[in-house]
């Protein structure tokens, strides 16, 4: 029997009868049977005991029952002693006393809860405000928004992209929290235009809310194709699978990664687990954030007035520009400091180690633009035990710059970062650039005694084009 009405327990030897529609009244003997009916120890089951009204004899018997007395003490059951000839009014008064005590306790608890809630609300509001500021700081000014966290290479083996009825199911080797994009590899030229639809789902249970999206594919398109979620999921880190299907006339084929001995990473097609996962590149970002407009450098950056993010890993490898004048070339050999330009895969960043004697400039090809008017670079000093480093960025039509001297006039303002700082370097182009371009990434440590551990990184680029006249 489950009861939510408060229960008044009256010892059997009290003659008076008592009843009230808001209370359940039970004789002590019956109550004792109820709580003794389960297992080998007394248990109060689904009861809200208001109190016990016991005669002196019943109370003595009650206290002599050690297990029952222990339970009553643990459950803090209120108790009153009444004479055996107590009247109905006396019982009523006892019930009222119990209710009054209970009312006080409930009010006190309620007040405590309200105070706790108020404190939680206050700290929650403060946290929300702080969080928003932090988001703004991190999102708009500092770290890159995409981090490539896993790469599974493409092989010659392929899998047909099915229709919406039986989507491919690819387990993700990252939690749903913060997952923002995935590159899949179109093995052959898409036979016709269509769209890859994708969705982030739980292995068991409902799909992740708001994670359905699609990517248009042009006819004859092939190679890596980026699928970006509208917003990265938040919440606790959870396992997730990616569901993929094709909407269009004739489906393209996706490349598979090498065979894997671990079934928990392999793609499932038509309900049958395969022997390999899909070839993938996986990206993460800040949880609950929309993905920034990430540009795919295999297409031209359109002239639409928008700013797009380009990741270093999507561009061609960087190369260090030489100095053109011979004396400097010779002198380079005598430079005591170390300089190098390379791509850091793990950080997905271009590393341009500065010199204390001269600017070091890296040239990064691989971008085609239409009416490029502004470039920003997300820059970072990777270590904390070094000296301040200056960064600059610029862009030139592809193939027009072959030395540092030629590059320097095209750079924007120099931006200095302290050790372990993030920042932004900026370059406005007086004349919009169109066609293939080269990015110029420069670092320097003027007036510094040494350049030890000067790990200068370019972690991402934001490119802004001028809106076309038709749009304008």
């Amino acid at each position, binding site marked *: 029997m489950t009861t939510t009405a408060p229960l008044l327990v009256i010892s059997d030897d009290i003659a008076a009868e008592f009843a009230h529609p808001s209370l359940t009244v039970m004789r002590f003997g019956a109550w004792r049977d109820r709580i003794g009916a389960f297992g080998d120890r007394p248990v109060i089951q689904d009861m809200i005991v208001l109190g016990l009204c016991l005669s002196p004899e019943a109370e003595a018997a009650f206290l002599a029952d050690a297990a029952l007395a222990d339970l009553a003490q643990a459950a803090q059951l209120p108790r009153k002693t009444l004479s055996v000839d107590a009247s109905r009014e006396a019982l009523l008064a006892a019930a009222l006393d119990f209710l009054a005590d209970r009312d006080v306790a409930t009010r006190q608890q309620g007040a405590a809860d309200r105070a706790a809630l108020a404190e939680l609300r206050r700290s929650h509001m403060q946290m929300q405000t702080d969080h928003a500021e932090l988001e703004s700081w991190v999102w708009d000014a500092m770290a890159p928004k995409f981090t490539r966290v896993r790469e599974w*290479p493409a092989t010659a083996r392929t899998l047909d992209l099915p229709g919406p009825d039986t989507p491919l199911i690819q387990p993700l*080797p990252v939690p749903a929290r913060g997952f923002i994009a995935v590159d899949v590899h179109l093995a052959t030229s898409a036979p016709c235009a269509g769209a890859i639809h994708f969705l982030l789902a739980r292995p*068991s249970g409902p799909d992740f809310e708001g994670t359905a999206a699609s990517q248009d594919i042009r006819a004859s398109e092939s190679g890596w194709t980026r699928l970006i979620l509208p917003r990265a999921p938040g919440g*606790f*880190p959870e396992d997730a699978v990616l569901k993929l299907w094709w909407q269009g006339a004739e489906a393209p084929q996706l490349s598979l990664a090498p065979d894997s*001995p671990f079934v928990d990473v392999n793609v499932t097609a038509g309900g049958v687990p395969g022997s390999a996962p899909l070839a993938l590149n996986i990206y993460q970002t800040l949880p609950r954030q929309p993905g920034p407009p990430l540009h795919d450098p295999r297409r031209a950056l359109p002239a639409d007035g928008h700013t797009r993010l380009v990741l270093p890993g999507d561009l061609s490898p960087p190369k260090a520009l030489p100095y053109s004048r011979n004396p400097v070339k010779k002198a380079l050999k005598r430079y005591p400091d170390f300089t190098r330009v390379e791509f850091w895969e793990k950080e997905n960043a271009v590393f341009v180690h500065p010199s204390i004697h001269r600017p070091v400039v890296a040239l990064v090809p691989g971008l085609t633009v239409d009416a490029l008017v502004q470039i920003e670079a997300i820059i970072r000093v990777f270590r904390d035990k070094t000296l301040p480093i200056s960064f600059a960025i610029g862009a030139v039509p592809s193939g027009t710059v072959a030395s540092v001297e030629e590059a320097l006039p095209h750079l924007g303002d120099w931006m200095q970062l302290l050790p372990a700082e993030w920042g932004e370097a900026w370059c406005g182009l007086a004349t919009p650039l169109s066609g293939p371009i080269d990015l110029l990434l420069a670092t320097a440590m003027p007036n510094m005694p040494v350049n030890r551990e000067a790990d200068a990184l370019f972690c991402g680029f934001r490119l802004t084009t001028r809106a076309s006249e038709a749009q304008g």
Partner: protein
Amino acid sequence: MATAATPDIAIVIPIYRHSALADEAIAAALALEGPLQTVVIAVDDGCPNAETRLALQGWAHRAPGHFHHLHQSNQGLSAARNLGIRFALDTYPSIQAVFPLDADNLLDLHSLHVFADLLQTDPRADWFYPNFDMFGLNSAAHNGGPFALPLLAASNQCEAGSLIRRRIFDAGVWFDEAMRAGYEDWDFWLSASAKGFRGAPVKPSFFRYRKRPESMLSGSHGQDVILRDQIQKKHRWLYAHDHVAQAAADLSPRFAVFETGEGADPWLCTDPRDRVPSSADALRSMIWAANARPWQVWLPQYWVFTRPRVLDHLADRKLAASALWHLQTALRTADVSALRLIQNPNGERQITSIAPLTLSPIKKRSSPEERRELAVEKRLHRQDRARQAAILAQADVLMVRLDRLQRFAALATGKPKRTAAEVTRLTYRGKVAEVRVALEDLAPQQQGQPPAEALKNFGTSLIQDPANSVFLSKLTPWREAPKMASVKDIAQIVSTFSLGGASYPLRRAGKTLQIGFVTPIFHFGGVEKCIVALAAALRAQGVTCHLFVYGNSGMAAADWLTEPFETVHQLCDRDLRNWRGPQYLGTNTAPALSSDLMQNMIAPLLGMDAVVTTGSAALFHGLSALRGKGVQVASWEHLLETDGYGRMYGTPYLAVGYEGGLDLILTCSQRLASWIHANGVPSAKLLPLPNGPGFPTDADQIAQAVTERQGRSPDTPLRVGFLGRLDAQKGADRYVEIVQACRDLPIDFSITGSAVLGDSGLTIPDSITRYPAAYEVAELTEAFARLDVLLMPSRDEGLPLTIMEAQRVGVVPIATDVGAVSEAIEDGTNGFLIRGHDVVLQMADLLRRLTADPTALSKVRKGLGGIDNRWDANATALIQALERARPA
């Protein structure tokens, strides 16, 4: 909210002090949505906070029919869980599974979808345990590879917040209410496993564990040693004997063996008798996979490269398991262990482990004066290297640990030039331990690569697909590996539960009783023959026997002696026969052993149900360890010896001294049992096993021998012989005197035997025909066939086997009444007993009478026989005694 009349899942939330956090757990449990119905049962375990009851009463108002609240006085977490579970199962017969949710933890909203999938898709799993997804102190660790009992033995893989099928509780498995200090969940999984239930890891997220800097679990970690001890005592079904090693072998063989012959495929085994075919490609793939997920992939822990037929040759001599054990044990201090077969000029068998060379160090020296020292050191270092290279080159078998091969695989990402050099370095550099196996003959030579080359080639093949290695390394899950025992630790886990040593590579077939006989020497002595005869009789009754020779010398290379044993294991160390410990009542004990030797001695015995030790004083130091692991130990006593001053001494004194650590004391005679009882050992611990004949023969042979003897003409001379060691204990000098005293009688005297240690110093007259000592069964049969009377003028004896062997084929024994000889000979009925002094005179007189009156001899001959089944009766008695002595 609708009433859950037929819920599928009960979520049981015990609450003690977590009054506020419980609201979160209850809210999460009540909010679950999915294809299953749930009921939530909150158990107030006598929480001192009134708030708990108010909160529960509030939830009862909010979710009537879906929520129950029970209140009891404080009984502890286990009791609270049990109460809620009992209530759920009693109240709702529809419940399929229970989820104990601690009040400070949470379930994800989609959990019921996960539960439904689990219950439907994995009907064989009995409980489902989550990943370690922590919040508060945020972290995420996965729950390891597939469920494995040996890993559960080492640490708790399964969080209490698991989905538990009803059938486990229906089978009577509950949380132990006495375990209030922690680890009650670990105990619960072990109890369930004991009844044959098995868990399964859940890969998708659904459960959140609140991790605070201080938690109840931290408290139980503080008592880790005590609680582990408690658990190990309670779950002896898993922790006793070598059960953890056996459970590990169930999951993956211990050895991968590559024979270097042409076209030979590798095979896997734990016990070299049980080979599982494999392929090099499959093993390579597994190594790569294990490099990517070391906690998930089960692989053999020891890799063996052997010339063709070497292990077969050892297996023919029942030494294959022992050889693998020695190679494995040697890897505790070495990077590579190398076994070499050599021919023993003594014709004995002996396995000797030699510790790895410690290369001579080269110290940095700067002054010119020290150049000479430097040159010497470099030379010594080179010599050591050369010796090490020679050991590798001459090896017939090599063994390396899995991690060594994984280091090969890890080279895949290196630069090719460096890689080649590193492969060579990994093959030929490092500490090399040698195991020498001396045999009476060598394995027939067959074509095959040297094992070191085979190792190098396999290592090279591991790095030939670097792209694959790099790709596999990217298949790690997003959660961290948990900080608990995993597959990669399995060798260490097995060693830990084998008392730090290497368990014997033996797979138990069914529940056959396994008995190990431990002896410090194994030649052709009487005690050895007793062991062999008893083992043969035990085997005939379905017992599997193993021989453990724990001494400092080789063992007899006679196949008939080792025939009754399933395996033979040898451990050679001079400390195993060191008798320089303190004296107990005038008998020396063995001094304390080093921990390594103790581990090496004890660990292989853990696979035995019972161990019978004969004359191994060193083993007495391991009695408590053996019994602690559930191995029954019996000491088998044969003889009290007499020293030069007439004082008795011998191992029976040690048996008395170590009586408390022994389950049984076996004696070769009733008389010795009485003596030991008189020295304070309860008779219930004593089991006399009266000796029988010491070598096997069949009934036809016996009948033939008796008939031939009876068919001899009465006119032919009486053939009287002495069989055995030519020493004073056996009375060889007395025998010569008897021969001298009987020169005038028509008797052909002979001696069959030799001195144990070189020349006995005895001058044997030409009138005595001499025969070499008889070792093989045919030689022994022949030795008795050429006798009518066996003369045994011994000064000390137990109950000599020779008497029964003689009686069996109709040879009349005449023996001095020493030791328990009178238990085998009833004077004038089945032999003659010579009592008191003047043994030479009495025996000569007796021979004189017998030659004068051949009917006296015929009369005694008729009383012989009826002793053939004595060992069978002994075997039956031993099996029954072990059964009686086995702890409940």
